[in-house]
């Protein structure tokens, strides 16, 4: 038992360093997408929610687990969709499309 806890603690420590290291050089324009993206990633709690509902043995556990699944799904699905929507706008445009306003200027 003590060994398992130690193993988890090791994982925890290493993850802290990775987490800090990995975002040290993020340009400020990407702060919002980064926040939103990491918001989606902690939606991994859905795995936990599935496990507690899947292991529920009493009515109370079922209700709580069911609620957890709903909330976690909102977190994970909403998080990824919002982030994608933000990032969609950052894609570089190969050629600048001529807009109608430009045409009007020409005449």
């Amino acid at each position: 038992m003590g060994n398992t806890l130690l193993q988890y603690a090791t994982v925890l420590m290493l993850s802290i360093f990775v987490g800090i290291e990995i975002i040290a050089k993020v340009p400020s324009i990407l702060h919002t997408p980064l926040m939103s993206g990491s918001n989606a990633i902690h939606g991994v709690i859905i795995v936990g929610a599935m496990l507690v509902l899947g292991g529920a043995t009493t009515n109370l556990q079922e209700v709580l687990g069911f609620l957890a699944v709903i909330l976690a799904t909102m977190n994970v699905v909403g998080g990824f969709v919002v982030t994608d929507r933000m990032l969609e706008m950052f894609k570089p445009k190969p050629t600048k499309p001529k807009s109608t306003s430009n045409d009007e200027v020409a005449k």
Partner: protein
Amino acid sequence: MSRETLIDLLYLFAATTFVLALKGLGSPKHARKGNMVAAFGMLVAVVATFFKYVDGHSLRHIWLILLGMFIGALIAVPTARFIKMTAMPQLVAIFNGVGGGAAALVSITEFMHIKASHPATYVTLEVLLGVLIGTFSFAGSAIAFAKLQELMTGRPITYPGQQVINAIVGLVAIVLIVTILFTSSTVLLWILLAVSAVLGVIFVLPIGGADVPVLISLLNAFTGLAVAASGFTLGSNLLIVAGTLVGASGILLTRMMSKAMGRSLTNVLFSAFGSNITASGATERADGASVRSGTPEDIAILLGFASRVVFIPGYGLAVSQGQHVLRELAELLESKGIEVSYAIHPVAGRMPGHMNVLLAEANVPYEQLVEMDEANSELATTDVALVVGANDTVNPAAHDDPSSPIYGMPIINADLAENVVFLKRSMRPGFAGIENELLYNPKTTLVFGDAKDTLTKMVAAVKAG
């Protein structure tokens, strides 16, 4: 390879995609791919979980799980898809909050489950932390959402003895945690749940205005930590890795955000910033200084004679949905040989990077977006600085007035330009609630009205001229 090993391997894969995704989100080129990679990893983890054994048998209530997912997706997808881009911060807040709530529920349910099969089990610290942090994040995010959605006042809410009351509630939570550790009482666990929710609410109440996004980032990090705590309870490496990644990077991101505002995190969280300033709303002040206002047509003429124009967009632009018209104006001016750029303050909008997202939505070319430092070196040779719906980010009080709450915040030096034009709704101060001396500067012209209307009129006037 046994079934469990295979599942663990898939979890390892998922955890790896999360790390890669965070890495990818750090560069504009790979960000979108990064997000997709994480979504795929998440899908793999969820599918793998369906095949997992709990207590030696396969998952119960499969249909209930699927139903819960269906309901969750049914609520989340349309919300995420169709809500306006300006409402992005509160959307992140609410999705973060439900994640925190889920983490708290998972912790508490798993604890009841373990206790039912092993009555002698003692509550361990990670269960309590999962409940405390998760519920805190849920309640705090709900209030942050209400503030940004303007369901309640966005200004800080203060009352006498606030810090003392907060400290007492915090102390109660700690005493509860210690007591539960010794007594292992499930009833007290429910009380802890309630106290955590109260703590989340009262912690967030005094934080308002421009500070709310920083708060959301912090709560996001908290939810990550709550997920990590649930991971300890469930014995899941995946949850520990993902939760800790978000927790650690989130706290760093929060610090980066408060630094962009020139303030410390403690100052953001505990100073009830901007609560004591009252908006006068008058165009003339007691000392006789008055503002000069102009019509959109005046400004169009001014712009027509300029050789370099810098737009300084702020949240007001986003609110009026004027970013498309602004781009149209920029293209029009460019076609007349005028050099145009957009100066983006790191915290313009309501979140760092928010303004870039909004302008990208309006198809503003990347190259025209100039970051603050670069903009400041250009502004001295600029003919017109057009401030559209921004206020605090160009407030010279940040340089000149040590008594100002924003003293020390890096700003865009719009006052260096030959002419300064403000498009403003009214004389009301900005998000932070502070008077702006620049409005009274002799080289400043104000155009009152909705930013989009004004811009539309300016476009017409420039065309006519």
